[in-house]
């Protein structure tokens, strides 16, 4: 059972109050009309699915109802940090984090992890 800190309510609450809403930091295309099918496919369907540190969106469904970001390890289930949407989480030395907020290189993360 996760105890998740909602950055808006500023409280740790049980997992059941929340819903996971997928990968975080996926900006909606600014110019949708000019996108190719491939770009749409990437935006809609392709996710990092990282084994290791992962940035994801959660919603405090049974609480304040707001979306926020979570930095969580998908192998150990440790939650490193939660932060509001629009905020930037400083990467730590153990994370090789790219501009989208996900660990960029599966191989590095995996080999070091195992």
């Amino acid at each position, binding site marked *: *059972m996760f105890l998740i800190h909602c950055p808006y309510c500023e409280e740790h609450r049980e997992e059941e109050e929340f819903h*996971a809403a997928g990968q975080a930091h996926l900006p909606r295309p600014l110019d949708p009309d000019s996108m190719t099918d491939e770009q*749409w*496919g990437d935006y809609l*369907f392709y996710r990092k*699915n990282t*084994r290791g540190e992962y940035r994801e969106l959660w919603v405090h469904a049974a609480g304040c109802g707001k979306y926020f970001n979570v930095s969580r390890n*998908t192998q*150990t289930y440790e939650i490193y940090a939660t932060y509001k949407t629009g905020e930037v989480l400083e990467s730590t030395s153990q994370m090789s984090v790219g501009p989208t907020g996900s660990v960029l290189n599966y191989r590095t993360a*995996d080999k070091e992890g195992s």
Partner: protein
Amino acid sequence: MATPTRSAPGIPRMSRFSGFGLIKQAYRHQEHWQRMWRNPKPKKHYDIVIVGGGGHGLATAFYLAKMHDKVNIAVIEKGWIGGGNTGRNTTIVRSNYLWDEAAHLYEHAMKLWEGLSQELNYNVMFSQRGVLNLGHNLQDMRDIERRVNANRLNGIDGEVLDAQQCAQIVPIMDCSGSTRYPVLGASWQPRAGVARHDAVAWGFARGADSYGVDIIQQTEVTDIVIEDGAAVGVQTAQHGVIKADRIGCVTAGNSGVLAGYAGFELPIESHPLQAYVSEPIKPILDTVVMSNAVHGYMSQSDKGDLVIGAGIDGYVGYGQRGSFPVIEHTMHAILELFPQVSRVHMNRQWGGIVDTTPDACPIISKTPVENLFFNCGWGTGGFKATPGSGHVFADLLAKGEPNAIAKPFNYWRFRDGSLIDEHGAAGVAH
């Protein structure tokens, strides 16, 4: 029916299992059973290397050897064969899928299941005890009628039952109408059922081995060797580089990691899916009951324990364990249907990592890397397809081009929009 008793050169001939053999071994104090498969040292080069020694990977190797006369094949497995999702599922086999593409694929598997024990000369304990998919509201019943009609048009058996007929098939189920989510009816597939999951892996392994396929366990693939845009081998942690003309990856929850080695991405998210087994009790349930609306499914194994499953965790996870809230929700669902099992203790609980695609259908496909093929994305329903998956993937690996059944399940469908939306159509929502 052909049996996998033909031996490749240098491989000792395997004796057939039979009733007479059982008696013979009993008189020899069960001390002279033949080994089921060899434990070979890997060669430097294979025609085809299959990464992942689960049911699907072993079935692929078996059908490659049997149907396509390929014998220089290796199956490389990180742990032990059948130790991943093959040994972690709830063993349900059915083919009542809505869309033509999926129906053809799963029905292809169903037909192979029906002769599998004979084909492998190995009892996979396939028991066609039928599957009920319950409906609890008017929309459920409309969907059920639509799906059953679609199934019948595809030559798949199916019937729409009302609550009374459900109660006749499963007397212990609460069909009274006084529950919060009353059972209004169900779809019923009599040919569906369960199989012994471990035996499926072992049977395919024994069958493939008898044709000379090398099954290499305890060997982890740590990279895919690519030269000029084509895969030429795999890097392993234990045995260095193993070269191959063609590579097939059948690694379920770790498919995204392998695709990462090869430098492309898969539209897959890995989620934990858990299952539970109760203490053994007397026979109360001789079929499989699944419910989409209250969200749980249950069958009873031959040992007597109740085998229960439910939904995935909503978040990405590789932990091979499920979350506590899902346990509670599943038990709610089961008790809604079967109030009298409320005092039954759960013996075991475990989780497997399922590789879910956006349309809940698998990817059986060529990839952007030449000579590299993927069979993944089976999500929550891979076990039922094991022989069919192996059969069509073997065809793809042997010929380099997908056959008519596998073709719709290509990697590029997520970019050209030709999705096969089985999310709502599967018996249980995930």
